[in-house]
């Protein structure tokens, strides 16, 4: 009898703690998605109890072509899963640390009101699960991240993601929503060096990253993986910045954000070109796409885009709208007032002409630096997913005549170079025959290319053949 009483008492003790007298809430498991996908808008009109399950994992994955990195992740991806809840929801977070992890991890959600944002309550050794709950009091787009010491390293290795707390009335309807998160990586060797790259603590302390990327790797949102939309659609980008150090100047080239919910809050500003996204912060950007084409998404702190990987693409399909954007409608020689009445070609004919292959290569090199290097880079390596390589390029070596025509008349539409498809525009360059011949000779005699010499006569001949048609 006595022991029965004891058991009864202990059973009472085991009952879950009531979180105060509350109305009965619906319970559901959160639908989470991986970047760039976003879970569907919430249609519920009442708060619910939402269970969010997240697993922390440490794994080796691609950072750039030929470059691997040991990422520490939420959900096995960088950034981690996108969580979507509604204001007033009771969110129960189950954080499981995979048994193969070497590190303890936790989660600090900026959407939490309470000490550590849940960090201390979710501090979890490998092979264990921690649970805590919080009430989503404030609507907004929030970063979450691991906050285990040394925090910088956990973040630098990839532990961040976004949680959206929808306002009760929801957000204005749009046609497409995407999840884009910027962050930077600090590797032992410089950008592009192949192999498994370890974290470089010294560079992290100096805030000098080798990689600045969207969605966890160079080219994660380019080529086949580019974001897609159709002309006339309203697009919403949920933009986060995991840092750990840099503040992003987030910009979509050729678009103006109709609305920006600055820093992920609820107040919107209209007509924004570039919005600042702090490390550990976010922004919601809405815009309508009116004109087809490929829009390049960058961190407009622009060296990060050109040299460190902070480039993504949004491809918009549909009919042209010449009224909004005409495309190129004029192409004329510009004669500044007071200049001699010479055409560019005549002028360039007075430039030094090469008398040997060696001289041609030398002159070609300096012309390359002026005309080509910005895109194709100093070593001819190009920029992944944006500008094809010239170094060891099968496309270049296959057909010198085609190469001349591309240089003179430009090229658009997809081309395959060394197995990768590039779909960007090369502009027509205003070059004299001599100059074009020098550049091409330089190219063919650099970086393991075929070694041809191209003469001005060949250039003149190919010029007549016009633009390379590419389908």
């Amino acid at each position: 009898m006595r022991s029965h009483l004891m058991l009864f008492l202990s059973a009472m003790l085991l009952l879950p703690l009531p979180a105060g007298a509350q109305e009965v809430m619906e319970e559901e498991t959160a639908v989470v998605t991986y970047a760039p996908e976003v879970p569907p808008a919430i249609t519920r009109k009442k708060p619910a109890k939402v269970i969010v399950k997240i697993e922390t994992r440490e794994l080796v994955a691609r950072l750039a072509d030929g470059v691997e990195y040991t990422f520490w992740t939420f959900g096995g991806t960088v950034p981690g899963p996108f969580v979507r809840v509604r204001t007033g929801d009771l969110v129960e977070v189950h954080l499981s640390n995979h048994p193969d992890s070497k590190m303890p991890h936790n989660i600090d959600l900026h959407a939490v009101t309470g000490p550590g944002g849940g960090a201390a309550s979710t501090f979890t050794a490998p092979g264990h699960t921690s649970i805590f709950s919080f009430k989503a009091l404030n609507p907004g787009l929030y970063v979450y991240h691991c906050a285990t010491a040394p925090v910088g390293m956990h973040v630098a290795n990839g532990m961040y993601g976004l949680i959206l707390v929808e306002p009760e009335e929801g957000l204005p309807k749009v046609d497409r929503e995407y999840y884009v998160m910027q962050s930077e990586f600090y590797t032992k060797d410089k950008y592009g060096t192949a192999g498994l790259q370890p974290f470089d603590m010294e560079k992290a302390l100096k805030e000098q990253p080798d990689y600045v990327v969207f969605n966890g790797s160079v080219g994660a949102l380019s080529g086949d993986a580019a974001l897609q939309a159709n002309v006339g659609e309203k697009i919403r980008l949920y933009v986060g910045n995991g840092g750990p150090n840099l503040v992003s100047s987030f910009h979509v080239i050729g678009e103006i954000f109709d609305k920006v919910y600055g820093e992920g809050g609820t107040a919107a500003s209209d007509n924004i070109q570039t919005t600042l996204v702090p490390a550990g912060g976010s922004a919601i950007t809405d815009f309508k796409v009116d004109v087809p084409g490929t829009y390049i998404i960058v961190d407009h702190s622009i060296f990060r885009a050109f040299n460190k990987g902070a480039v993504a693409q949004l491809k918009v399909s549909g009919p042209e709208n010449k009224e909004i954007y005409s495309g190129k409608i004029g192409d004329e020689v510009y004669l500044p007032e007071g200049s001699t009445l010479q055409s560019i070609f005549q002028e360039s004919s007075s430039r030094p002409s090469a008398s040997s292959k060696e001289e041609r290569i030398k002159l070609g090199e300096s012309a390359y630096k002026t005309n080509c290097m910005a895109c194709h880079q100093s070593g001819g390596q190009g920029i992944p997913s944006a500008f094809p390589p010239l170094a060891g390029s099968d496309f270049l070596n296959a057909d010198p005549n085609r190469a001349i025509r591309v240089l003179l008349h430009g090229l658009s539409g997809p081309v395959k170079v060394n197995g990768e498809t590039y779909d960007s525009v090369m502009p027509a360059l205003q070059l004299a025959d001599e100059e074009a011949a020098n550049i091409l000779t330089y190219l063919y005699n650099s970086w393991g290319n075929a070694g041809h010499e191209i003469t001005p006569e060949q250039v003149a001949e190919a010029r007549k053949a016009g633009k390379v048609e590419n389908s």
Partner: protein
Amino acid sequence: MMIRGFSAAALLLLLSSCQSLDEVRTARIPQGEYVPFFDADQKPVEVRSFHLDMTPVTQSQYLEFVKKNPSWRKSKIKRLFADPDYLKNWKADEQVQSEQAPVTYVSWFAAKAYCEWRGQRLPSIREWEYAALEGKRSGERGDASNDNQAGILNWYSRPGKEPLPEVAKGARNQYGLFDMHGLVWEWVFDFNSVPKSDGRSSSSEFPEDLFCAGGTGSSGDPGDYASFMRFAFRSSLKGSYTIRDLGFRCAKGES
């Protein structure tokens, strides 16, 4: 002749005892001072001389213990002393995964019982940290450019391998110890002396969230990432936890 014969026997005896010692080689760690990682006052403390196993305890060594002490078999272990992953990588009660690999998936209770069975004990956190100081002497600040720290960070940040590599394959430190860094994490006697907060404590005397929410205010050296990781790891543990990358070694001598 008699005497010589006798001494030869004595020599033989000595030799054989050397061999048995050889199975569990220990290094003497000389007395000295060092500045503990997260002590607020950052004063040097004294560490008395003690002996420490040269390598983490191997699976074959632990197997001997399990054979002699059946209550520590994976099929017999009580939940109070180890969680269900105890010796998870062993195929059976007396079948190890890799003889010379460190034994892992062992709880603090198991590690303690093993050392006591051998007439030893677990090293204290101070002893372990003192013996593991490498390329960085007491009082020096951690430095990101320190080669050794870079090597340590590199191990800490790489996913673990299965099965684990064998012990004593790497370099020794100045005391002749193998594998203090770069093989497994190791239990220490007072692992739970690391400040920890669950974020709800109202009046704890522990500094809030030192390791969980990333505060670096109370630590002596914010550049010492390797120590941060070790202390954070220890503070995430409970005595019954068993983890793939967590083993131990034993110590002897006054604590």
